[in-house]
């Protein structure tokens, strides 16, 4: 067991984007003597679910100018791109490959370690559990050893659910995603950004067969446009109201903006600084209403695609190769070398069966911590040391991101960063939001030094 010395020590569990951003923020102030232990089971840092090499040429869905690791140094990523010889002819409103962003995060981590000799320790290990101890938090590793630190931060990020229907449906890029005949008919469940990734993988493999995209609403993500965000002030935003009231205000603002020759994207982006506050001002009832009825609609406007990609997708739909179906997915079974998917179209009471060569499950990321595939999360929840938030979309944390146990007691030394805190913050999935959270968390951890 490693013991913690007198100096401040933090263990970060998870070395994806959230973990790396936090480590970088903790090590930014060279005057503070701190020991940061970053543990990642895959042994690749900065390459979580979103930015791993397996995503090949898939693009980041946020323009490069918004992707700096540091909110107070917005050009940081762009400068790094320039140093690597990335073409600057189109300016910083460009969408870079995701693996390039993964490489940037690796660079950020390396620099943080280099400029703070002896303060950053990275480990390739699987974390099995965390325990509160007298001196802080003990992090138990799969190899039987443990790390003791003053505090620990769960940065486990997104995790995908196992594909639905007893393993008949397939996750893109998984081992079972074997090559298909180019003219095979496939079905994709879900129509969000994960579907776009799946479609892109098929398109890049010159797939010619028909692709049926099934989702409850049949909504495609919208495309980006280079328009400035509307300047909105907190004094203007109707916090704490009912959903219909808020949506009326929002739609009126969009209409007014359009009348002045503006774009709806400016309103969506202008609201961004207030999204977490808006979410927190809502009642539990309003939050649930939003998740049930508005979330898909909000997602397609808020999480948009690079314009060229959006055009390609729209063209594929227009050509008939991609068919959008608004339907509920009922189930899937194997049948004569094929799989037969059962769906119920929206507004219809009858089910229908469609035979396809493969069903891809792009149902998005898992949100239920009770069925987490991550041992440390499962252990925390099973022992009542952590619990799901009231809406069951992440872990319950207080306003400072500290874990709340089954009895409502806060564990100040055990913190959470990133998407798992979405019950409290809702919009905490993209780099521009996570880097702000990393800065706040780092400041709070360092204030205990």
């Amino acid at each position, binding site marked *: 067991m490693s013991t913690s010395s007198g100096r401040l020590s933090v263990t970060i569990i998870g070395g994806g984007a959230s973990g790396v951003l936090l480590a970088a923020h903790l090590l930014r102030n060279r005057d503070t003597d701190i020991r940061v232990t970053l543990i990642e089971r895959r042994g690749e840092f900065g390459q979580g679910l979103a930015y791993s090499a397996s995503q090949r040429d898939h693009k980041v869905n946020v323009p490069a100018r918004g992707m700096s690791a540091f909110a107070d140094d917005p050009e940081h990523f762009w400068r790094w791109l320039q140093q690597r010889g990335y073409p600057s002819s189109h300016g910083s409103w460009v969408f870079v490959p995701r693996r390039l962003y993964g490489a940037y995060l690796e660079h950020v981590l390396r620099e943080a370690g280099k400029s703070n000799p002896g303060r950053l320790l990275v480990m390739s290990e699987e974390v099995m559990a965390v325990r509160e101890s007298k001196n802080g938090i003990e992090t138990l590793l799969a190899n039987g050893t443990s790390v003791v630190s003053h505090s620990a931060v769960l940065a486990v990020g997104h995790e995908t659910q196992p594909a639905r229907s007893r393993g008949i449906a397939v996750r893109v890029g998984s081992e079972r995603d074997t090559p298909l005949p180019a003219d095979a008919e496939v079905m994709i469940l879900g129509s969000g950004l994960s579907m776009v990734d799946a479609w892109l993988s098929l398109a890049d493999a010159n797939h010619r067969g028909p692709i049926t995209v099934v989702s409850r609403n049949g909504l495609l993500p919208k495309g980006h446009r280079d328009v400035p965000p509307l300047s909105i*002030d907190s004094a*203007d935003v*109707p*916090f*704490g*109201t009912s959903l*219909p*009231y808020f949506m009326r205000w929002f739609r009126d603002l969009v209409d*007014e903006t359009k009348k002045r020759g503006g774009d709806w994207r400016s309103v969506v982006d202008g609201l961004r600084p207030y999204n977490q506050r808006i979410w927190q001002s809502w*009642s539990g009832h309003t939050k649930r209403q939003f998740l049930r009825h508005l979330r898909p609609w909000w997602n397609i406007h808020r999480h948009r695609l690079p314009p060229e990609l959006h055009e390609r997708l729209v063209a594929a739909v227009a050509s008939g190769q991609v068919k959008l179906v608004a339907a509920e997915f009922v189930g899937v079974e194997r049948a004569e070398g094929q799989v037969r998917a059962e769906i119920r179209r929206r507004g219809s009471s009858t089910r229908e069966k469609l035979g396809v060569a493969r069903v891809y499950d792009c149902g998005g990321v898992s949100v239920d911590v009770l069925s987490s595939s991550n041992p440390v999360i499962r252990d925390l929840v099973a022992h009542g040391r952590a619990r799901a938030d009231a809406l069951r979309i992440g872990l319950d944390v207080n306003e400072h991101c500290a874990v709340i146990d089954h009895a409502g007691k806060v564990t100040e030394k055990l913190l959470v960063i990133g998407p798992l805190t979405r019950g409290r913050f809702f919009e905490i999935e993209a780099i521009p939001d996570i880097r702000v959270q990393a800065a706040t968390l780092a400041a709070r951890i360092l204030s205990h030094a």
Partner: protein
Amino acid sequence: MGDIARRNNIPKKFLDAILSELRNAGFVYSRKGKAGGYSLARPADEIKIGHVDRVLDGPLAPIPCASKTRYQPCGDCDEATCQIRRLMLDVRNAIADVLDNTSLTQMCDMGGPEVLIAETMTA
């Protein structure tokens, strides 16, 4: 409702208009019938005064040119050099800061006629 109007000495019609706006915004709900009336839709400590004020009076702007979404120019000044406007933008932020961090419960604790309204509504 008649009770609130009497105890606070405000016309019933005026109160009716206010309550109907508050109902539209989801701060209160109403029930018809003999045992009916208005109740708070959320616990009083969750309702922030600034949130209610935006619904009743629009953006928290001390003067119309200091609002961004309900902006109206003053007509008799040059905005780029108007010191008053710049000052009023700070005033606006200060107003929001106070009102958005004060709950209905806290306001009741301060006393005054609002206590009667809140007491009647939560009763």
